Every structure is written in C-alpha cells, then in structure tokens.
C-alpha cells in the first residue's frame, strides 16, 4: 500500500491509500489558486526536467500535463509519437535511454500497451515515472482529477472548503459508472479512487463490456440501468472505444445507445443534483445525448480544467518529493 506518492512513481491507483489520495487532492487545491493569479507560475520545479512522452494520441491529457509542468517552472521535453515505438524503428527502451541522456527528473508516459509505464520505470529507476494512461490498465491522474472534481463541486454546494473535508464527502456517495468498463483504463482508476475514498460504486454495461473478473471488483453490477440512474449521486460515463474494436462487442451503436446511453429521455429521470461526468472525448449521441452533455449538472469541462492542478500536484509530489511550502 502506497501511503504517499511523494518521491514515488505514479503508475496505478490500485495500491494507493486514502491518505495518499487526499494528499494529492489537497495539494491540487492549493494549486487552483495559482491559476487565478496573473502570473500563473510557481518555482517549485525550477531547473527540473520533465519529459512528456505520448506514444498514443491525446489532446487534453498531454496539454494539461505540459501546462502543469510549465506552471511549476519545470523544463518540458515533449515528444509525441502517435504510433508504436516499434513501427518507428526504435524501441521504447532506446527512446527512454536517449531522452534520459539529456538529464531527466520525470517522465510522463502515455502508451497504448498496458504496463509500459512500469517497464519504463525499470529502464530508468532514477527517474520518476507518471503514467498518463497505459493501454487498458490505468490512468491514475484521470482517477485523481475525477475524485478532485466531485469533491470540489460537492464542497461548493455546501459552502465549505474542499481541503477541509478530507475524504468525508465520499462517505456513502453513490457513483454509477456506465459503459465500456472492459476496455477502460479510466474505469479502473476511477473505481480504485472512489472505493478507496469511501464511495459506493455501481457499474452498468452490456455483458460483453464487463471484465471477466467483475465479480471480484468492489463494485455492484447494475441489473436495471434506469433504476440505477435514480440511485446515483454521480454518473461517470465512459467512452465507447471504437478505435479498440469495441464496436464488435455490441450489436450496433444504436442498440448501445438505446440500452446504455444517457439519452435525453433518460436524463429527464435524473435527480437535478446528480453530477454527470465524462473523461472525454465524447462520442455525442452514443454515450450521451448532445443536450445532456450541456446540462448544468454536467461537469465535463470542469474535469478538463481540473486536469492542470491535479497534474501539478502529482508532478510536485512525485518529483520534489519533500514536504515544503508550495511558494
């Protein structure tokens, strides 16, 4: 069990403790304030070098990691290779070694292969590795920012400061995760974060998009989707990942939308306070209706903007690694 990510790699949320998660959320809260300043920079990682390696396409994750690193005054080396390292003719190991030769403190890695971040951490044990999404495995900063966003919105509604609440706002919170659980690294990280923080989690998906071992997950599989929508305080929709061949797991996108999509008709049954989340990019009209995505209860854009403070917190804690003022 990881009790703090200070000075550690962040590869997965699977073994990260509640205290460690709360520490990241609280640290991120302190960075939100930086965002409101005219000069949106702190010197916390001045002189440190962060490489951002994206071997798979990404817009928001990459931008928010690089923005986060720059706001911490780190030097950022950015390499986007939206194709397999093998096809490029250079192995992941060699690519990492090449970049490491430039003097690295941290690597932010997105890769289509599960476990790539862990492998890189073995190639460069002296460098902190932050997993920005590996295959079907984990996307820990997405799990953290989703938890951060939920806590922030619930605290605002009560007029309290999020960092005073620890994990208490998650106690017994009803969170429903809908869609392609099987192929989703976001689902794995979200479930780990939410359950660790004390929430009750249910999942709703067609039988083909549930992992084989779902019975061993600390979640409940929903029988009646419509009933679960009423139960939920928070609904996390997942992307139907057509690029991973998910299309053949359901008879048609239309049928998926009919059975598990958040259509306008279904949205009318939601309690008004129920939060709607989506890690993006959205397939409008598939997982959720366009109208629904624009409802006030949808906090999808908030998730995006919270990506920066969460990633600042993760970079700061893993790379700086010591307790000190944020400046």
């Amino acid at each position, binding site marked *: 069990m990881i009790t703090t990510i200070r000075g550690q790699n962040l590869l997965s949320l*699977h073994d990260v403790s509640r205290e460690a998660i709360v520490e990241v959320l609280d640290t991120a809260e302190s960075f939100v304030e930086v965002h409101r300043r005219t000069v949106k920079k702190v010197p916390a990682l001045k002189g440190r070098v962060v490489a951002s390696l994206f071997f798979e396409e990404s817009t928001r994750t990459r931008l928010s990691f690089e923005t986060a690193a720059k706001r911490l005054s780190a030097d950022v080396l950015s390499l986007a290779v939206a194709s*397999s390292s*093998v096809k490029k003719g250079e*192995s*992941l*190991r060699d690519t990492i070694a090449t970049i490491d030769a430039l003097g690295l403190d941290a690597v932010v890695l997105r*890769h289509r*292969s*599960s*476990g*790539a971040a*862990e*492998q890189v951490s*073995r190639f460069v044990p002296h460098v902190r590795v932050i997993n920005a999404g*590996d*295959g*079907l*495995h*984990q996307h820990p900063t997405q799990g953290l920012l989703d938890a951060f966003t939920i806590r922030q919105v619930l605290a605002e509604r009560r007029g309290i400061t999020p960092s005073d609440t620890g994990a208490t706002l998650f106690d017994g919170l009803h969170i429903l995760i809908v869609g392609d659980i099987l192929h989703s*690294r976001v689902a*794995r990280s979200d479930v780990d974060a939410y359950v660790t923080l004390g929430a009750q989690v249910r999942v709703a998906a067609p039988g083909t998009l549930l*992992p*084989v*071992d779902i019975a*061993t997950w600390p979640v409940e599989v929903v029988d009646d989707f419509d009933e679960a929508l009423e139960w939920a305080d928070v609904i996390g929709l997942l992307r139907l990942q057509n690029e991973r061949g998910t299309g053949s797991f359901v008879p048609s996108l239309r049928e998926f939308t009919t059975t598990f999509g958040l259509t306008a008709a279904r949205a009318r049954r939601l309690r008004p306070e129920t939060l709607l989340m989506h890690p993006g990019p959205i397939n409008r009209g598939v997982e959720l209706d366009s109208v629904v995505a624009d409802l006030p209860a949808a906090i999808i854009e908030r998730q995006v903007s919270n990506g920066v403070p969460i990633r600042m917190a993760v970079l700061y804690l893993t790379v700086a690694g010591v307790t000190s003022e944020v400046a």
Partner: protein
Amino acid sequence: MAAVIVRNGLVVGPESATVADVLVVDGVIVAVGEGLDAPSRSREVDATGCWVGPGLVDLHTHLREPGGESAETIESGSRAAAVGGFTAVVAMPNTEPALDNVALVTYVLDQGSRALVDVAVAGAITLGRQGERLAPMAELAALGVRLFSDDGTGVQDAAVMRRALSYARPLGIRLAQHCEDTNLAAGGSMNEGALSSRLGLVGRPAAAEEIMVARDIELVRLTGAPLHFLHLSTARSLAAVGAARDEGLPVTAEVAPHHFTLDESACENYDAHYKVNPPLRSRDDVAAVRASLVNGWADAVATDHAPHAAELKDLPFDEAPAGMLGLEHAASLTFEALGSSSADPIRFFALLSRSPARIASLRHGDARVRHSGHGGAVVAGEDANLVVFDPSARWRASRDRLQSLAYNTPYDGRELEGRVRTTIVRGDVVVDEGVLA
C-alpha cells in the same frame, strides 16, 4: 576404437534401476554390469551417486533456423540441448519460411547432421502453417519425417484438421497440435482471469485451449489417426486427454516445465520473459500439470524452447513475442517437480527420454534422417546416447551462462536441484561436469 566407461552410476532402465558400469565402444553400448574391465585408454566417467539413463529427447524445440538466426541456430541450439542432457531434439517447423517442403527439411537435416546432438524435424501440417492446404506430408515422410505440426498456432479449421489426420494415418506419421482457438485467444498475452483484468492485459482463456483439445479428441475418434497434444497447460485439457487415452484413443500429451513451475502471477510486473503461449496459468492449473507428471495424464515433458532476441523481450508485454528458453533447465525442473530427493528416476527418464523418443519415432536409428536410436533401455547393443544426472547437485541458473544465443530464460537466478553432469551422444562425451567438452 573409442571407448567410454561410465562407472558406478545408478543405471535406470524402463522398469528397474541398478548400480552398474556402462561400457561404450564406437558409439554403441557393449556391456552393462558391475566391475567391468575397460579397454586401455578408455575415457572414464565417474557416475557415483548419479543416475545413468538414456539421453533426453525433446519433442518441442524451436531452433529458429532458417530465418531467426539472431536468436538461435541449429548449432547453438544443439549446444544448449547437450548441456541440458538432450541427445536428440525435434526441431519445430515454424521457421521463416516454415518447414513445409523437401528442400527446407533437407536443409535442416543437413545442418542437424553436423550438430552436437541428433536433430529430427517436425514438418508443417499445412503449407506455410496457414491452416488451409496440406503440406506434402507423404514426400516429407519419405525423407524420414515422423512428426508434423503447425506449432505456434494450431490448425484452426476442423475440416482441414480432419483431412490432415486422415491423410497422415496410412503414412504412419503422427500429427502434433498446438491447441488454442485463435479467435478466443485473439490479442491475448497472458492467462485470462482476475490478474489479466487488473493488469489491463487481454487474456487468453483456458477455454481457448480446452475447446481445441476436445475438438481434436473427437477428430481422433473420427479418423483413428494418432495425435500428440503439445504443451497442455490446464487441468481440464489434461483430464480430457487422459480420459481419451483410457478409452483407447491413440493420443499422447506433453507438458512444458514452465507450465508446472511458474504460474500467471509471474506476469504481474509486465516482464515479457514470462510471456508464452499457451500462457502461464492459474495456480490450480499449475498444480494439475505438475500432478500429470505422476498420474500418467502427461506422457512426456517437452521444453518448447523458444529463443527470442533480447530486444524483443524488452518490448511492452502485449507487443513482445511469446516464448521462453527451456533446454538447459528442463531436467532440473522436472526432477524438482517429481519431488527432488524423492523423485523416481524411472519416471524421470520415462518423461524426458523414453516416451518422447517413442512419440517422435526416434527409438531406432534411421540413416535417411541421420539419427541414432534414443530412449531405449541401457543395455548392450543400444546406440550410446546417454546422460549422467546428478540428483544431489545444487546450482543457480544464470542467463549469462547459457549456450543458447538468446537470453530469454525465465529462471535467471533461480536455485535448481539436480543437474546434468555428462551427456554422451553416439558414444562421444559432449558434455562433462556440466560443461561442453
């Protein structure tokens, strides 16, 4: 006249074992007994405390030549075999190109005839191992090829497999199947289960293997042709083949050391050295494979020695090729699985020499394919393919001390019990004290 006398070892026959000397002259065992007189200038091998048995026979070796010479060659693979106590190996046909015609098989047999151990060839069942059209099995059988397989994958189409069995039966050859339904196992890189799900790796379910085993048992029933099941890895596969054998169907089965030594948890850190097909299975399956060594469900231990260039095993787990080295540690791992100090030497040689020699039709020498006889009793008149195995040895496996060109052993650093001390091929001591002569 070249003579070797192996002194004072426990000579392990098919039914009993007794301490004796074994005298070899000009490649043939000429006498077995106590206190034998040896000709002057005989080479003496002291086997006190050791087992002396027929040289080991590997039914399942990937020598990678032609096409994969950066990972292994026939020459380097035969050195690894000799160090591992093997006096004969069956080279699998999934080379580049596949061994599906007379010219290629002749090439491998020619290279093999210059190698340290006898190299037999398994021919492909279908052209290019594509699973569509039959390879020229009769022509290859005429060369002396006795075992055929599309190993790497199995023949997926049941009608093609049925045709292959029917074609093979009158030729007196044996087919060997890699049982995995490629559709069910598609994209998979480890055993399917809770661990693969947590790691985000697509799984290869046990059912992918079991379905094909069940299908092929029915095809054996339909055609009457013998079939050998390669590297079975699940309890249900082994039970199914065991039941078919009890019914009298002509089926045989091998198991691989990694499937009775390592379980799926080895994949936990995404180290591709533990990636293999069929995959490392659950703990229960590993226990069942181990049990099959003694309950008779498995006929043979075969290594599935699969060399890969080092850079390929550094790839991400899902992109890395499947397969691990096996020749140099198989004897020790089998000895351990049989209970180490309580291991039955008769069973040990049945699994690693006598049954595989019978399945591969290597029991008697065949001049056409230039191999000698293997897996026999240790008696006068037999070809002198022998191994001296020290059951009290303790040693540590190391990737830096392999004869194989490749390094992809999953056993690096592992403490092992029992060790091949001497390997004698056609009367020549090719390995002594565990090192190449």
